């Protein structure tokens, strides 16, 4: 499956929808067209910008910026709250188009995916023609624009799709010297794995472009990225080498969800109730992908931004709401919070696939102490709730007061 680094085949596409959430909103509300549009929290509330239109970007607004700041930068911008259900539906239409070309699709989120189109090359002259056709079908059938990068591997395709947004099509050369020349002027931030911290660290050494990193030896990179075992990967990436396959069975390593309160919340019953809802959402996602979690964690941020993350590992990997809630509440109560809470979050990690057939099963001393029988009952309950919610929406059914129930 791996792309050969020296491959002469340009078979990898990275398709990235342009300002996706904002574009969907414009599609549904033509009156927003041409206006600075922000999808995210309202400007008078706490929360952040999720996506914004290109018009809004001209005012310096960008995603992850606090909505309040965005409102100050552009007071006449239109603010809309995200409608995830709608974006998911549009995303599904787009994924259908991808699958008309190849089964090898690796979605990264609702609005971007890698495609390995090697199989389709028997029908099409080259990957560039396929990229054009995908863009065309997305435009005519969905009414949105996408930017596409075409390259020999995932890293280059992703870098490329971002270069000529919106409605771009960027083709990366095949030979190594040309690939290196393509990358050389780009900022180091474009490299996968180089975040804010590494960027600042490199900047202190006077290193700003990928071209500068290309001049460094493996030993020099090792000093820069010491202790991270990343030097080798970096050396390959700056040369445009990347042999990661397009992974269709993309595995999630963790799932989490969090909520920032409009005002710091001092009512612990409200915080507890929010934690409960977040836990149910994560639980539903966990069951949807058919996994169980070894580790459960909560995140609490107080008014002064001090943040605590506490985790525990239940006796056995779990996926039912009751077990998840029990752990979440245990972690929460143990903090003995009295000060107002700004943010509460819940997450799971260490995901395992249950019942892998020949896995050994630990037998137990006190069956009556084991939640096993209840687990079966709880699992059926969760399944019923998940089904109801899929049909009628999340609000269709709600758990009563947790404390009263136990």
């Amino acid at each position, binding site marked *: 499956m791996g792309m050969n680094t020296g491959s002469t085949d340009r078979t990898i596409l990275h398709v990235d929808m342009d300002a996706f959430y904002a574009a969907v909103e414009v599609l549904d509300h033509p009156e927003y067209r041409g206006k600075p549009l922000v999808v995210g929290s309202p400007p008078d509330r706490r929360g952040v910008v999720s996506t914004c239109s290109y018009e809004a970007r001209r005012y310096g607004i960008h995603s992850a910026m606090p909505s309040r700041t965005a409102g100050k930068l552009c007071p006449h911008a239109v603010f809309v709250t995200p409608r995830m259900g709608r974006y998911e539906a549009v995303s599904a239409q787009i994924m259908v188009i991808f699958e008309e070309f190849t089964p090898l699709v690796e979605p990264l989120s609702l609005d971007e995916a890698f495609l390995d189109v090697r199989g389709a090359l028997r029908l099409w002259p080259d990957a560039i023609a396929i990229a054009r056709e995908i863009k065309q079908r997305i435009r005519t059938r969905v009414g949105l624009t996408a930017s596409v990068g075409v390259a020999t591997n995932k890293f280059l395709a992703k870098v490329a799709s971002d270069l000529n947004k919106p409605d771009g099509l960027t083709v990366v050369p095949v030979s190594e010297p040309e690939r290196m020349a393509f990358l050389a002027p780009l900022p180091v931030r474009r490299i996968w794995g180089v975040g804010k911290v590494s960027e600042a660290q490199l900047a202190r050494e006077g290193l700003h472009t990928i071209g500068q990193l290309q001049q460094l030896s493996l030993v020099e990179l090792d000093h820069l990225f010491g202790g991270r075992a990343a030097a080798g990967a970096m050396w390959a990436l700056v040369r445009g080498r990347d042999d990661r396959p397009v992974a269709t069975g993309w595995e999630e390593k963790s799932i989490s969800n969090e909520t920032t309160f409009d005002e710091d919340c001092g009512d612990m019953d409200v915080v507890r109730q929010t934690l409960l809802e977040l836990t149910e959402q994560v639980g539903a996602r966990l069951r949807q992908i058919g996994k169980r979690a070894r580790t459960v964690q909560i995140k609490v941020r107080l008014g002064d931004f001090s943040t605590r993350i506490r985790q*525990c*590992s*239940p*006796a056995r990997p779990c996926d039912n709401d009751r*077990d998840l809630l*029990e*752990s979440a509440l*245990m972690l929460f109560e*143990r903090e*003995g919070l009295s000060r107002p809470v700004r943010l509460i979050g819940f997450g799971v990690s260490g995901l*395992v696939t249950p019942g892998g*057939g*020949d*896995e*050994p*099963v*630990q*037998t*137990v*001393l*006190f069956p*009556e*102490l*084991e939640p096993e029988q209840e687990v079966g009952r709880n699992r059926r309950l969760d399944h019923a709730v998940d089904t109801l919610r899929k049909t009628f929406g999340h609000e269709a059914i709600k758990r009563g007061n947790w404390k009263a129930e136990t």
Partner: protein
Amino acid sequence: MKIVISKDAVMSGLQMVHGVVNVRPTLPVLSNVLFQAQDEKLWMTTTDLEVTMRCAVEAKISKGGATTLPARRLLSIIRELPADNIEIEVDEKNSASISCGASFFKILGLPEDEFPAIPKYDGGTTFTVDQKVLKEMLQKTFYAASNDETRFILNGTYVSFKGNKMTLVATDGRRLALTEHEMEFPKESESEAIIPTKAVNELLRVLKDEGTVKIHMTKNQAGFEVNDVLLITKLIEGTYPNFKQVIPGQCEHRIPIEREAFLAALKRVALLTSDKASSIKLTFGKNKLKISAQSPDIGEAHETVPIKYMGKEMVVAFNPDYIMEPLRNLMTDEIFVEMTDELSPGVIKCDVPFIYVLMPMRVG
């Protein structure tokens, strides 16, 4: 308060009590150690509201009094002090001046009255046991307790004084360790309690090989008194599972094995178990025990240990940690493994009153 005290004395006291202090206490004063100077003694007390530990060390007291000071910081300062004689003077604002040789420190404390009241006993009964006996019994059992906080009833060691025996039990629902010690006490003193693991850990640091320990049992707390050291803990409330019903009676085979050789072989073979498939296979054959492990992503290992066994071949799988833990915590040269068949619990015993019941893993 003004005292002169030796570095060794402060260190030994602080080292005794600082383990109780939580890294993230719910109240600021719980980070502190309570100092009370009176009658040529400095009393030190720490608490997390569940476990309270108190001890006294010798000191020259020129002015009595009390204060509370940050325990961990104090310990790290005292440890580094250059000379043996330390002078501690605390003013009315609870700031402590510590002078030692050419070094001087001033640490800010909190008033004594913010510190929670030291729990008092409310009736109950008292038992006296050799420290060494209690220490060894705890060591043989405490590791089997559960860390899973959703099963809080198992997060400690069960202690009972019944039928002229002191019995200690710990279990996490997969294995169980039990020890007993014969002693005499009147029928009306019979009592039982579940001691939280944190208190057990602290107690293990207090108990020495000489002398006795006084155990006070009340309805909702237990106290352990060794000379000038006192540990009081709240009990875990609830009914401990009926452990007697899971201890197998008759077994088919009783197999003596040399403990250290068995443990060493298990350690080696366990290197080839992974998180995913953490089980180790024991194959009991004619005069030999084969220990094996395999893991699809890593590889496999096996090793043979000589045993005295002439029965039919038996294959049973266990969690490797669950077999190794009792072997690490026993001191005898020889142990006895009692087996019936593949799906029945395995039992480990030794020549002292000790039983370890271990549930097997069902494979395939």
